[in-house]
């Protein structure tokens, strides 16, 4: 479980948890389209 001090840290809440997902999005954005949720994103990037 996250440290209690992280509770109520609203400004940290909406960082995408998954850095991989952020990367996906960057890629999707670079390709000019919308993000498509891949079932196994890591397999697509490396």
């Amino acid at each position, binding site marked *: 479980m996250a440290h209690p001090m992280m509770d*109520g840290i*609203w*400004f940290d*809440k*909406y960082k*995408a*948890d*998954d850095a991989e*997902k*952020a990367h996906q*999005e960057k890629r999707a*954005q670079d390709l*000019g*389209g*919308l*993000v498509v*949720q891949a079932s196994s994103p890591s397999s697509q990037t490396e």
Partner: protein
Amino acid sequence: MAAGKLYTYPDNFRAFKILIAAQYSGAKISLVQDPPGFKFGETNKSPEFLSKFPLGKVPAFEGNDGVCLSESNAIANYVANSQLRGEDVLSQSQVQMFVNFADSEILPAACNWVFPTLGIMQYNKANTERAKEDVKKALGFLNDTLKTKTFLVGERVTLADISVACSLLLLYKNVLEPQFRAPFTNVNRWFTTLVNQPQAKAVLGEVQLCVKMAQFDAKKFAELS
């Protein structure tokens, strides 16, 4: 009674709560939001502005008596009246509780959900889904609170109602389509009542509730960013 100028950009939901509070209290506020009086990113970065408001943030209030205040909640408190602030320490503290709730529980979720649909923030599916859940949770809490009450604190409108309603405004206008908002009957009733008060209408105009949930617009985002 407070009187002065409010510097902001047009349609700033943080300014709305101040302006609505002023409608209730009768505070005389002149809005400075269009060039040449105010241009966002220029006026608020000018030495003259920064000498009065060192952080360069808007909304910013300059009283006719020279008082300078920033932070929207502080300004709303200043231009309000004692009914809006809460008549005793407990009411005032409860008002602050809801004002903080609006800022820390509703706004982050509302902006993360709505801003991408307005094309002013990148879309992130995980964040949008999380925001939807958080909005549901917040609406559920409010719905329970409003089960037996007309207003959030005491028996009359306070800054609690005004702040929370203004933080929900983007949601109700853009994404809370009928099906999504249906379970929250008490909140819907309360919100509709509030935005239809003459004091709110004078600031917000006619508020059209969302008919169909807005979606991320990649094209608009590309144009704006």
